């Protein structure tokens, strides 16, 4: 079966000094630019979709340089899942909070009129942008990458049932 189905059957990663060095230099800039774009999307072109995508792409870049398997272990599954799930939860939370304050879904100005937060509209939008969309997009980009990289292991190539149960134990640890 070789290295054809999934990383567990053989990693074809080859280390390259050039790519490693270049990524070490470029990745901080990419991450910074992604975060700048996310946080600064209110007043200049750009926003959370772009920023989230660039943050996600940074992780892809690291994965190419250091190998996908090590990156996946470094960035734990729970981190990615909480990014995506947390983003959706924040989005729903802000929306329901405005309903609880007596308005309609995402009626931000209630943060000012009811709670008295100055610039409540802007803070509400920033919460959605940074806490919601950027996290979701970054998390989903990483998820799709890792899922596609892991590929599909057909049942006939899956090893004996012991490995299956071992997998399950690892899962329950997470």
């Amino acid at each position, binding site marked *: 079966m070789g290295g*054809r189905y999934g*990383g*567990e059957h053989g990693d074809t990663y080859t280390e390259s000094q050039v790519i490693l060095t270049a990524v070490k230099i470029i990745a901080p800039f990419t991450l910074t630019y992604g975060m700048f*774009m996310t946080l600064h*999307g*209110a*007043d*200049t*072109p*750009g*926003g959370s*979709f*772009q920023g989230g*995508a*660039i943050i*996600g*792409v940074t992780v*892809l870049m690291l994965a190419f340089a250091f190998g996908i*398997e090590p990156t*996946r272990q470094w960035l734990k*599954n729970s981190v*990615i899942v909480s990014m*995506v799930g947390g*983003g*959706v939860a924040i*989005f*729903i939370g802000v*929306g329901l909070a405005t309903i609880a304050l007596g308005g309609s*879904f*995402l009626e*931000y100005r209630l943060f000012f009129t009811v709670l008295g937060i100055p*610039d409540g*509209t*802007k803070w509400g*939008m920033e919460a*959605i*942008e940074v806490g*919601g*969309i950027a996290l*979701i*997009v970054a*998390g*989903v*980009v990483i*998820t*799709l*990458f*890792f*899922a*596609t*990289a*892991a*590929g*599909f*292991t057909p049942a006939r190539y899956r090893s004996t049932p012991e490995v299956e149960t071992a997998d399950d134990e690892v*899962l329950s640890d*997470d």
Partner: protein
Amino acid sequence: MSLVGYTLAIFVIVAALATAMFRDVLSAIIVFGAYSLGMAILYTLLLAPDVAMTEAAIGAGVTTILLLLTIAKTTRPTTDRLFESIDVPALFVVGAFVVVLGTQVLPEMYAVGDSEAPVWSNPEVTQAYLEQTYEDTGVQNAVTAVLAAYRGFDTFGEAVVVFAAGIATLLVLKREVFA
């Protein structure tokens, strides 16, 4: 506008044709990356910075990588012919489609950038957003304002769709985690 726009249109068409005609999938993916580059300049030229940025990050970066990963996971048929042979019935159907659109629909459209076009001149759509954005939300980028405030519910649905797509990918690959 005009000179750059027309040459860019030629570039985009050439890139798209090359993508369609390459027999080798890897070459098609590489050329599709070039097509995406041209498309992003075109979006920038048409005053859509947010769209161009997203296309740059997603079209050129993520799509190419996902396609490459897929052919690494499956197979890349080797071939000695450079281009595909032309499928005449498909060409006929597509040609009819394009000719009908070009002769029947194109003359009915407003000119590109015409400020009389309804999307721009209608006072209840674009003008309202542009006039009220800063007053209502306190942000300067009208796209962000529409995205997060005026059409927030829409964006919420979209976010959930993306979330669901991530789950669907894991389900199709029968994986509970990514490893």
